[in-house]
């Protein structure tokens, strides 16, 4: 899902950065508030960020014969809400842009939009929705992490399709090509991310009941 440095026209870079910036600002404010009001969850916040670090470093082989990596954002989104996850993703994307030449500074806004905004919002919505209809938290967290991951790669495909429409078949044709590269490859990896997130969730429900209770009160008050 990393759009490489210089691989989006300047106008698109500015547009995506402008779209992402407000979410980063809201996320930073929310982190400040949550940590001030509930310092007990600080370590869980760090652990959720660490989970994004680990999963986005794991390049896994896929059925398409190519490799890609999960995003790890579904856990933080379900626990802390989507905009907090925007900030965590931005930190990881910045690390990778500066040290790994993976993604880039010009494409940072676009990459934050797919990994830090669309993915986490999809994950958060699914987590809340599935819990509300009473299917249980394991199913909720699995679906949220899996489809949030996939949503990020679908977003990247459309971002590229809008920037580079196919000369014959237009944006739709280009989207099909990019979805073939990103989304199809991502299906098994997204399922892996879903399963791993359930593993972490199981550990949290055993050892971190106090923090989970604080966070579920919190997200009932404000998304």
């Amino acid at each position, binding site marked *: 899902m990393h759009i490489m440095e210089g691989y989006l026209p300047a106008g698109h870079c500015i547009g995506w950065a402008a779209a992402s910036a407000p979410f980063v600002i809201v996320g930073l404010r929310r982190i400040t508030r949550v940590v001030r009001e509930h310092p007990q969850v*600080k370590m869980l916040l760090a652990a959720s960020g660490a989970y994004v670090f680990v999963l986005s470093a794991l390049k896994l082989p896929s059925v398409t014969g190519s490799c890609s990596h999960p995003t790890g954002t579904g856990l933080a989104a379900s626990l802390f809400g989507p905009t907090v996850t925007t900030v965590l993703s931005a930190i990881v994307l910045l690390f990778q*842009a500066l040290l*790994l030449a993976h993604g880039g500074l010009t494409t940072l806004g676009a990459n934050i939009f797919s990994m830090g905004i669309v993915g986490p919002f999809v994950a958060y919505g699914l987590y809340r929705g599935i819990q509300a209809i009473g299917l249980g938290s394991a199913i909720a967290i699995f679906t949220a992490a899996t489809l949030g991951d996939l949503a990020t790669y679908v977003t990247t495909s459309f971002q590229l399709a809008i920037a580079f429409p196919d000369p014959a078949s237009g944006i739709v044709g280009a989207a099909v090509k990019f979805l073939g590269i990103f989304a199809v490859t991502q299906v098994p990896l997204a399922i892996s991310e879903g399963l791993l997130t359930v593993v972490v969730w199981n550990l949290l429900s055993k050892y971190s009941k106090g923090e989970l209770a604080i966070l579920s009160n919190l997200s009932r008050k404000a998304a």
Partner: protein
Amino acid sequence: MMKRNLWLLLAVIALAVGPLVYHGKDAEFAGSDNQAEQAITALDPDYKPWAAPLWEPPSGEIESLLFALQAAIGAGLLGYYFGRRRGLAEAGGKPQDHAAH
């Protein structure tokens, strides 16, 4: 719970090993980000990337070092967190942080 987690982890390993076995030697397992780069060049041969990374890892080895570092930082923190929580749970204490002081 531990048994269930073990099965979930086995499923993740199977999902990663499956493609390797299925494709054997006929797939390159290239990164999808690079494939997208090639697709861009195919769609718009005149497009010239207008920015380059400020710094690039000088070799594949250094790149894998930094990726391993990224994973190690994350895994280290996660291990610390769960170790601490588990220790507290077994000591019968409430999860409290003294980091604020």
